[in-house]
């Protein structure tokens, strides 16, 4: 049974790691704005300007 002590220590150290992660996240300001990131997820990453589009003719998608 005493092996459980080891398991508990292992699980606790993982839990504490997550707690430290949370503290770091709060400190670095990630909880300052919890609304905008949910909008950013809708955006595509940088799309290179297409040279064929510069003449005001939008190709049909």
């Amino acid at each position, binding site marked *: *049974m*005493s092996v*459980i*002590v080891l398991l*508990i220590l292992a699980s*606790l150290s993982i*839990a504490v790691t*997550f*707690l430290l992660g*949370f*503290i770091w996240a*709060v*400190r670095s*300001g990630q*909880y*300052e*704005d919890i*609304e*905008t990131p949910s*909008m*950013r997820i*809708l*955006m*595509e990453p*940088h*799309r*290179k*300007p*297409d040279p064929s*589009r*510069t003449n*005001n*003719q*939008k190709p049909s998608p």
Partner: protein
Amino acid sequence: MSATTNPTVLTATGLGLTGVSSAHATERVSCFHCGELCPDHTFTQGEKTFCCQGCLIVHDLLRENGLDQFYDLSRHPGVKVRGAGRQGQWSYLDDASVRTQLLDFDDGKLSRVRLHVPGIHCVACVWLLENLFRLHPGIGKSQVNFPRREVSLAFQPERIRLSQVVELLASIGYEPQLTLGELDRQPPHSLRRKQWLQVGIAGFAFGNIMLMSLPLYLGLDSFSGPLFRKIFGFLSLIFALPVLVYSASDYWRSALLSFRQRRMTLEVPIAAGLAALYAQSAYEILGGMGEGYLDSLAGLVFFLLCGRVFQQRTQERLAFDRDYKCFFPLSAMRLTAEGEESVAISKLAVGDRLIVRHGELLPADCRLQSGSACIDYSFVTGESEPVAKAAGDHLYAGGQQRGGAITVETVKPVSRGYLTSLWDHEAFRKERHQSYNTLTNRFSRWFTRWVIAVALGVALYWLAHGQTGRGLKAFTAVLIVACPCALALAAPFTLGTAQRALAAIRIFLRNAQVLERLAQVNTIVFDKTGTLTMADASEVRFLRADASEPGAIGAALSAMEKHWVAGLARQSAHPHSARIYQWLGGGDIAPAEEFKETAGGGIAGRIAGRVIRLGSRAWLENAGIHVRDTALPVGSAVHFAVDGEYRGVFVLNNRLRPETETLLTDLGSHYELALLSGDNARERERFRQLFGNQARLQFNQSPLEKLEFIRGLQESGRVVMMVGDGLNDAGALRQSDVGVAVVEHAGAFSPASDVILEAGRVGQLAETLRLARRSVRIIRLSFSLSSLYNLIGVGIAAGGLLSPLIAAILMPLSSFTVVAFACGMTNRAARPLRIFRNECP
């Protein structure tokens, strides 16, 4: 920046014009960029129609830089660019002192600035502003904080100046708000970080202690021996310590404060309960006698903090504390020997000569030097009619110029003006009532007394029977079980839910306590201009001079006359002219020749050989025209003459908001109503009918008189709600028990207040008050419910029978049912508000 003056725009417009405009000539189309209805089809490109040149330019600019994803993210995402910026309008931003105050960071190579941009409204805005770097190489990373409507961006000052950054933002429709208040803006507060940490740590401890308590509850230690009981006990003690010391620190602090001030707030029994929980648990665990109540302790703190977060996640983008500084611009145009220069307001000196253009504010008390001044003080004094001023007249700060440009000389420093003197009043010096007299605290006053009485009584009872150990245990058990967790949660969840329901229909409360005060209101005081009437819409009627019956002849203006009046009125920037022109349908009418405007008099001009005059009675009579007497209805009169022959009079009235009448009837049956207006009394009769005979109607009120009127009402024992919109109401809003500021849109400036209400929502005031009263009733019911739980718990505890397992079940159970009851009931009570939700943009 070069793209703003792109020649391709014109060719594209020209091409689109022939193809599309004939096809859709009759139906009205929304602008592809901003969604406003297009007046015609002048600006088209392919299948897209634009309402103005500005929108088209922005569209092409984004297009060329590969930013057309903007239009895929939402429909009509753009912001209409209002009025072209003047050359050098922002140059004061490069002034070293303004720069350092605005910039968050600057090392010469890289600068960072945070700008408040009220125009941000959708996903596409966020996307565009975060892709700004593609419009100018000097701009680095930019990040938007949507709830606060803020964009913070980095730029290289060697490649782009701050003024150019702002100019770029303004050119694509996102003009930042740069007011005097922006300068002493607080940095983002770390308070909320602390709250998140407190909740997180309490939650972490709650979960882990629960995991370790479960085996003990299930009787695991009966076959694993005392080893685990010890380990789990010690670990729980360690985990519970930060909860007690850090997470619950605010409760300790306020309990201590209440104790010192001899007040019985709810924090006192909470703190006592927490202390008893930890002491009892430590005693049991260290003594090897049991497992303690640490899971209950952590759970309690966690739930309490969750309640607080729920309640405090309010509309932070709205500033409820704005003062006059947020009303004043950051800069003014100063006249010097070399010409005009843009200068920061803080650098204005007495004696400076300034140019104030149409729509601009007077930054300080000034004397008019030249130009035809027509000053609109409606926001400052409540006077709805703009005042014409002649050279040499004194002009007060905060007035808005209507019409052409004027030159003024400042006579007082910015901070000493007539307007800012209101802020020296004592009402502004005292802290806004952080009331201790909340429902929760009133209830907890007798609750706490009872708990302490019962705990002591029980302890004494067992002592008298010689069972000291049991007596001590029962004493702590009563404190533990009576710890008013559910009680403390009832108010935050009820009020938080109600607050959210109101925010969904764009009525914003400063904090949840405002709802409690709303429920106590028995007197409602209204401001007139901008609150009950619309600021810039008016009813226009034409009364022909020869008609015997006034009022019946609105249409009697012949087409020819309409043409003349419109042609003349369109050339003047005077609000009366603008309203008449609008009433006549606007349109492109040939302007009058020999146009002449007399300040405070009227306008004259020649159309098709005829001399047309529009103006005041005295001015027409001065010109030798006989003005016939007619019984004029209430309103401002503009007389009309053609070739020296009097034709009739236009009567302009401030238009009531359409919902005003129903609202006043609805409220009048429950509340005492009053009207406070800075305007003159010419509309007294009209409002007498609306308000009924009992209501007190006060006109010609200065801001200070308004404040005193409210104070007088309060001294006679009334709980007053003030509804107003202007700076002139700032004192009254501040003094009243609930100040409601009416704004055109939520981002606009509003004086400090408790409630911010969008103008279209004035009609829902009655619903809001009803919801407030219901919420308070729900809180009362929740109190009874949680008291019931406490009664059962205390019954068990008094017998000294409270086991950790019962505590661990009873506490969360009571909390959950109370929270579910409070939220459910409040959502039901708020259901009538839902029908208004769809109307929101």
